[in-house]
């Protein structure tokens, strides 16, 4: 009998959902906007993080060694440095590699090749590219290098140049997280409030029906469940529309992110996480709708 009643309240909820015309449209539109804002905020937060990760990946300290330092001794310095826990990775770039990179970077520009030919020898220095585990550690590493036993071999440390960039990135990183979090909370709260209110107005316009239900002897659960299911249907519809809108918005934004993400564009990220994104937007919609229905109808359950 419990199952039968539950099934009936489910049907009742579905009927309300289909019968209420403009109220349904209004509720779905508001919920869609809420879900869209919330998921856009989240996705933008994720994107910013991806961009920052990518930028952070590009930061390093480049230590160039004097031309007379042998490859063997540079490699042994590399081994020593790798023991520091602040150091994430070190790449050795030989003079030849530096030269070929340089030529490749210039796209085999004849002017450059000619200039190099005139010099007659490789003007570039061998270097170690050091990456730290986190941006704050570059300062420490840089200091350690300038006070090291092999400081005489070092031609120049290409850190001071990057220092401002590193610091600024660090600041942006912290700021975006905080702003993102605050904006996220504000948007989510406003969206939820608006959605709850819309569902409440929707229910209020049908308050007579709740009175009838009470008079006829429907239990509180029996009165409440259709509204909860109705909310779930609103949530599902809104989630579906939101996902379509997200796809369109991301497709429009994707070209902007082409150069600054490590792996492809935002669209690739969206496609790669389609299941997670769909599930979380749907879950959010369903929870929002069900909770909205549950709370909205409470007022009409008084005896």
């Amino acid at each position, binding site marked *: *009998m419990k199952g039968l009643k539950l099934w009936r309240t489910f049907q009742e909820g579905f009927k309300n959902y289909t019968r209420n015309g403009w109220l349904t449209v209004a509720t779905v539109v508001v919920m869609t906007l809420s879900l869209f804002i919330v998921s856009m905020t989240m996705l933008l937060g994720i994107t910013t993080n991806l961009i920052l990760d990518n930028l952070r990946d590009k930061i390093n300290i480049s230590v160039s060694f004097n031309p007379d330092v042998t490859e063997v001794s540079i490699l042994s310095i590399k081994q020593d440095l790798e023991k520091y826990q602040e150091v994430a990775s070190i790449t050795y770039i030989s003079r030849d590699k530096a030269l070929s990179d340089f030529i490749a970077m210039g796209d085999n520009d004849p002017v450059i090749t000619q200039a190099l030919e005139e010099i007659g020898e490789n003007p570039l220095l061998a270097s170690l590219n050091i990456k730290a585990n986190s941006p704050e550690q570059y300062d420490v590493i840089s200091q350690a290098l300038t006070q090291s036993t092999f400081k005489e071999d070092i031609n120049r440390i290409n850190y001071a140049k990057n220092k401002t960039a590193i610091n600024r990135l660090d600041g942006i990183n912290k700021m975006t997280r905080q702003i993102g979090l605050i904006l996220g909370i504000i948007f989510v709260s406003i969206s939820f409030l608006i959605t709850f209110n819309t569902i409440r107005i929707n229910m209020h316009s049908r308050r007579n029906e709740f009175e*009838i*239900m*009470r*008079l006829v*002897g429907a*239990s*509180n659960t029996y009165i409440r469940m259709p509204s909860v299911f109705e909310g779930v249907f609103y949530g599902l519809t809104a989630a579906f529309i939101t996902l379509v809108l997200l796809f369109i918005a991301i497709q429009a934004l994707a070209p902007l992110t082409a150069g600054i993400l490590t792996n492809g564009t935002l669209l690739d990220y969206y496609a790669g996480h389609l299941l997670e994104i769909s599930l979380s937007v749907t879950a959010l919609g369903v929870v929002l709708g069900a909770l909205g229905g549950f709370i909205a109808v409470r007022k009409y359950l008084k005896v």
Partner: protein
Amino acid sequence: MAMIRFENISKVYPEEIIVLQDIDLVIEPGDFVSLVGHSGAGKSTLLKLIYAEEEPTTGEVYFNERPISAIQRKHLPFFRRNIGTVFQDFKLFSQKTVFENVAYALEVYGKTNEEIADEVPQILDIVGLSGKANKYPKQLSGGEQQRVSMARALIRDPKVIIADEPTGNLDPVATKDIINLLLEINKLGTTVILATHNKAIVDKLGRRVITLDNGRVTRDEQNGKYVL
């Protein structure tokens, strides 16, 4: 054993608005009671106390000698199933058909679809709405809508029917129909409490009449007349 007993009832709304005071009444099983009085005399409030839509400020209402205040809130819906209610404004679901409106009273019970398909047409036949099962309330006349409401109240075989101005919106012919229906139901043993402003009906009924004035019972006569 009394069906309904009011014991020292008063009802005071906020800001000291006294709606009912010093009410002591007994309604026996099978009674047909007319409740008369000016608008605002407290008729509807008195009825609401019976189906527990309102609680008395002082005193106690007994249903079948059980105090209503002792019923837990969550059990009130089950208690209300003993009482059929009919109102001036019919209180029908506008988006449900006649059949669905009546069936709802059985659905909340958990009756099966087969039982519902069996019982609803029977009761619609009794109230004379056999051909209208698939109509919506707005496609019906006032009298027909009130008969839907009656069918819904009757289908659970209640011990008491409370009719609060059931004929207030109806023409004389429909009014007569509804009153006759109430008399029929009463003949079968159901207690009927009828609040009304219709002098002609009350005088013709020749049954018990309780008169309320300013929240007090001013008359209570078997075989009474409509006197305000």
